[in-house]
């Protein structure tokens, strides 16, 4: 063998183009498209209908998004590990009905206790998902499709025709979704705190980074010694807690809770995460993106109404929006890949 030249051929140019400009880094953010779309949407709608950004309008927008934001944050956590949780709508329903029941059966129960019980119930349901996925090692899509049905069935069996109404709950509880601080409704502030905590966990802790590694290549993660089962279980558990929190907040915000509360929410939540740039096969994306996705999807409904767009068009437009989000993300990643190829290409 010939003696080594100072550096291997072919790796010479790598570092030169590698110092990224701040702008470049900003443009590569996966959250960018959804943010731009959101700003554009709000701007256009406000120009046409100034009432859209009235204090009440803003409050409504935030309130509408709050519950989906919390669900999307939890879902992002799960999707990043290359799993998915379709049972969130059912979990939310069960917890929301449980909240209603608590207030009625235990008069004068402190609101904090209700929150804790709701999140605990969510944690339990999430833990069941997590256990089935990690211990039995079966695909999450199947398991959570199963628990979607089972939890919904439990909700139906428990609630029957009973519904609890806003009037059954203390005013202070309902006030959480009415009162504002600096224009932000209280429950929205809760959602923001949740997103910040989860975001910091994902970006800044070793365990959080492990989730990305697991989603990126689960087999490699196992070989590498990352406690895959424990991390994935925790992701499901956390998602359950957040779905539980969302369930309690649902009961605060909306009028009635009963057997069908929250049904059909699962695909909307997954869609929010996807629109926000969370890769459906795990490994990349962020909760901030997912939260933006949730905000965008809920805002579009309000915007279309405010623009007096025929309501029959709304669902179709939501569909187009989801598709555009995926396509934009794809174009962006193809461009990055191409750039990478060009920057590392041989001079031929």
């Amino acid at each position: 063998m010939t003696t080594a030249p100072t550096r291997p051929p072919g790796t010479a140019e790598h570092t030169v183009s590698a110092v990224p400009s701040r702008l470049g880094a900003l443009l590569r953010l996966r959250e960018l498209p959804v943010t731009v779309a959101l700003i554009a949407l709000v701007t256009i709608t406000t120009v046409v209908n100034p009432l859209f950004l009235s204090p009440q309008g803003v409050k409504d927008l935030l309130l509408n998004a709050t519950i989906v934001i919390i669900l999307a944050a939890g879902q992002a956590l799960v999707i990043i590990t290359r799993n998915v949780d379709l049972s969130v709508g059912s979990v939310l329903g069960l917890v929301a009905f449980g909240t209603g029941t608590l207030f009625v059966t235990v008069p004068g129960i402190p609101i904090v206790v209700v929150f804790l019980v709701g999140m605990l119930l969510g944690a339990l349901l999430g833990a069941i998902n997590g256990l089935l996925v990690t211990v039995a090692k079966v695909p999450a899509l199947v398991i959570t499709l199963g628990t979607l049905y089972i939890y919904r069935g439990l909700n139906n069996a428990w609630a029957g025709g009973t519904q609890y109404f806003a009037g059954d709950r203390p005013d202070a509880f309902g006030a959480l979704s009415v009162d504002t601080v600096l224009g932000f409704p209280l429950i929205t502030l809760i959602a923001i705190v949740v997103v910040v905590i989860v975001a910091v966990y994902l970006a800044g802790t070793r365990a959080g980074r492990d989730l990305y590694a697991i989603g990126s290549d689960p087999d490699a993660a196992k070989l590498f010694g990352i406690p895959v089962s424990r991390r994935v279980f925790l992701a499901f558990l956390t998602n359950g807690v957040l779905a539980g929190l969302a369930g309690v907040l649902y009961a605060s915000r909306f009028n009635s809770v009963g057997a069908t509360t929250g049904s059909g929410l699962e695909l909307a939540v997954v869609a929010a995460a996807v629109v926000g740039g969370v890769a459906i096969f795990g490994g990349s994306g962020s909760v901030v993106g997912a939260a933006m996705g949730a905000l965008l999807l809920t805002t579009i409904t309000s915007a279309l109404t405010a623009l007096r767009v025929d309501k029959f068009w709304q669902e179709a437009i939501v569909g187009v929006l989801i598709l555009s989000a995926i396509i934009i993300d794809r174009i962006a990643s193809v461009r990055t890949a191409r750039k990478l190829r060009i920057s590392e290409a041989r001079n031929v």
Partner: protein
Amino acid sequence: MQTESLHAGDGPPRPRLALSGAVKAFGPVVALADGNIDILPGEIHALVGENGAGKSTLVKILAGLYRLDAGEFHVGGQSVSFRSVADSKAAGISVIYQEPTLFPDLTVAENIFIGRQPKGRLGLISRAAMRQAARDLFDQLGVRIDPNRVAEGLSIADQQIIEIAKAISQGATVLVMDEPTAALSGVEVERLFQVARNLRAQSAGILFISHRFDEVFALCDRITVMRDGRYIATHVTSTVTVDAIVHEMVGRDVGALFPKVVAPVGDTVLSVKGLGRAGVFADVTFDVRAGEVVALAGLVGAGRTEVARAVFGIDPYDRGTVEFAGTRLRPHSPKAAIDAGMGFVPEDRRKQGLVMNLSVGRNTALTLRDRVARFGIINGRAERAAAVEWSRRLQVKTTSQEYAVSTLSGGNQQKVVLAKWLATDPKFLIVDEPTRGIDVGTKSEVHRLISDLANRGIAILMISSELPEVLGMADRVIVMHEGRITAELSRAEATPESIMHAATASLERAQ
């Protein structure tokens, strides 16, 4: 210096790690029947054996990935029973697996430090510190890879380098490397050796697995031989010869490794003219004739695989033509290539060569889908018969055709790949690193096979990073460097010097 550290002091040094009587079975398959190894501080210990001898299984036991069915395992004199990879890591064992374990979505730096990221303010991960640490590591290894880049799309060689960086950065007292050099070229191998010797000087124990004897003898202090899942013997390197080791591995004598018979050369089968793909390769022109073995040589990353992929239609190309048996081949269509009579044994067996979860039989018959069908309906019996027949001809070692091909050892997997292409009766076969990760016995079989195929009029394009293989097998050698052909050498002209010159030198033609 190695001998010093081995024999210095009074009495034998205590092994860093010792495994004895290890047994590991997967259902009916006993992968490891009697595994023994001890690794001393400050030694590089080679583990050799045929494909399927149980080397990787032993490695995975050391890594804590598999639990022993029976046997004893001591680390630092203490009996241990690892329950997880984390236990093994905590005990100071760091492993580079045979298959790279990078996370494609994470950056290079994060891949190295995952689970041990340096922390900054508030106990959160400091990306800057992590990047800097990665740069320092790469400087130490003498390579330049952008730590900010995602791992997705890295070449196999770069991936392997990152694996090595990852392992050494863990500061382990025992470093286990399962065929780390299989994807590396001479330069990189040499650098890896340097790193290994440095670690040895710091009295780490290293277990090194390779099928290349030149490497084993150049690097290692002791050699342990395994056969059929059993421990055979351990030798101090200076006291044995290659032939003796090979004899122990195979259980018999192995004759000439490269039984090249020069076959009569026929008409041009493949004619590539001015082929180019922006940023990848340019101006590639060559012919391959019936009965001829043409080797495509060069360093890893020279673009040989890319050319082969374009010729076979996996990738598109921007310029030039590929003519097959006189007619122009439709670009970017493997099906067209196969229909015309081409076959392609790719370099990455696990990802490209085989559908790992599919059974041995189905894999073998996968290329015959259309041929075993009549009026569009597959004749299941013919399909099975063909699979059995070709497995038999290539002596694929498997208990059942129904087993997933992933349960076979590397060499047997490679035989399945070859079987599936030979079954199509190709006129032209591309073999990309056909003996990568394959033991001596099988290797010589594969060489014999290639040579025989050529004798029977099949044109062969062989890509290989092993010079002895190129020199032994090829009728003609085409050397590539940085995406261009830098030399075309006849069998007589091809020498290690002329090839290496063309492979490393720049554009002026070496002759």
